[in-house]
C-alpha cells in the first residue's frame, strides 16, 4: 500500500494526517510505502506519525519503506537518529 505525502507535514497537518492513516494501519502487516517526493517539510509531529506507522507495521509483521526524501528532510531524519528506523529508497 502506498501513501503519498504532499506539502508541509507540520503540526496542524499532522493532526489531519493522523485521522487519515487508518487505512495504512489496517494494512500494517504488508509493505507500506510512504512516498515523500512531494513533501517539503516535516516537524516533530510528522516524525511521530512515521513512528506510529512503523510501530504498527512492526507489530503486524510488515515493514515501512520511505521513498523520495528530499535532502532537507533526509537531514532531519539523520539529526534525530530516525534514518536508521526505516528502509529509505
Amino acid at each position: 500500500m502506498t501513501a503519498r505525502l504532499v506539502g508541509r507535514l507540520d503540526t496542524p497537518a499532522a493532526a489531519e494526517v493522523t485521522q487519515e492513516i487508518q487505512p495504512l494501519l489496517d494494512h500494517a502487516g504488508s509493505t507500506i510505502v510512504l512516498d515523500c517526493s512531494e513533501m517539503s517539510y516535516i516537524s516533530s509531529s510528522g516524525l511521530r506519525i512515521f513512528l506510529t506507522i512503523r510501530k504498527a507495521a512492526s507489530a503486524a509483521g510488515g515493514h515501512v519503506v520511505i521513498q523520495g526524501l528530499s535532502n532537507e528532510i533526509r537531514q532531519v531524519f539523520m539529526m534525530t537518529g530516525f534514518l536508521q528506523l526505516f528502509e529509505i529508497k
Partner: protein
Amino acid sequence: MAEHSRLDPHAEAILEEYRAQRPVFEKMQVTIPARVRALLDEAGVVVASVESRVKEEESLAGKLELKGAKYASLSDITDIFGMRIITFYTDDVDKVASAVDRLFEVDWENSVDKRKLLEVDSFGYLSLHYICRDSEFPYRFEVQMRTILQHAWANMNHDTGYKSGVEVPVEYKRNMNRLAGMLELVDEQFSRIRTEINDYRRQVQSLVASGRLEEVPLDGDSYRSFLQLRPFDPLNRRIASVNQAEIQEVTLMPFLAVFKALGLKTLGDVAGLISKYGEPAYQIACYQMGLTDLDIVASSVGPQNLCLAYLLKKGGGRAGIRMMLDTLNGPSEGNDTMAEYILAQAEDFSFMHTKD
C-alpha cells in the same frame, strides 16, 4: 467394521475393546501432549517437536496376530497411545524425562533406557522409553524421548531396514551402526558447544557487571550484555536536552558492525569511545538541532553522533561516513549526500579545531 479373519477370538475381543475405547485414547492425545508442552515451556526447555498418535486398528491387529496371547486385555498393551518428544540436545533428553516423571506415574519395570543397553563396543538405537500412567485415564501409554539426530537415524534405519520386509545384508547394518556412532559423537559435540557458549556468556556478563570491559572482546553476546548497562543513555539524555526532546527507544545492535568497522576490539574500546567522543557527539547534535524545534530523537542518535565524531576527527572523510551510513541504513546514494552534508558542517564543529 473391519473383520480380521486371521485373528483368534481372544485377539478379536481385544480389538473390539479397542474400538469401543478409541475415544478415550483420542482424548489422551489431546490432553497429554498439551500438559507436556506446558511444563516444558514453564521449565524453559526448548524441544524440536512433540509428536503423538493413537495406534491404528490395522497396526494393532498386526501386533495381536503376532503376539496376541501375551496380552490378557487392552490394558496390557502400553503403546495404543504413544508420544515422542524430540530434543535438540542430548542433555535435554534427561530434562524432558524428568518433566515426564513429574507429570505422570512412570512404570519403571517396563520403561527402558536404550541408551544404556548398548555394549561399550556397539552403536545403534539410542532412545529413552517410559511407560506412563495418568490418573485421569485408565490406560498406560508410551513416551519416547530422543534427540533430533537419534530420531533421524532411527527413522532412516526403520525406513530402509524394515519396511521392505527383506532381511538386509550385514554390511548395511554395520554401515548404519557406524553412522549411529558418528551421530552420537555429533550429539555430544553439540551439547558441549552449547555448554561452552553458556559458560562464555556467563563469563562476559560477569566481566561486564564488574566493569572489566577492556577484557571483554567485542561480539554479539558481549555487546548485548553491555547494552543492558545502557551505556549511551547519558549522552542521549544530554542530546535530548538541547530541545527538551523525548527519546524514542530503538535497538542499538546495528552499531556493533560499525564499531567493529572502526577497529574497536573490546567493550573497553566502546566505553573509551563514549568517554572520549561524548562531548564532540553532543556538539554535533547542538549544531544540527539547536536552531530547530525538533523535540523527538531516537536513542540511536547518541551512538550515531559518536561514530560521526570519531570519523571526522580521525580523517575518515566521505568514504568513512558513507561506510557508516551504508552499514546502518543499507547502501544508497542518499548516504553519500548525507556524508557531504556532515563534512560541510565539520569546519564549524569546535572539536575539529582542538587537539586530541
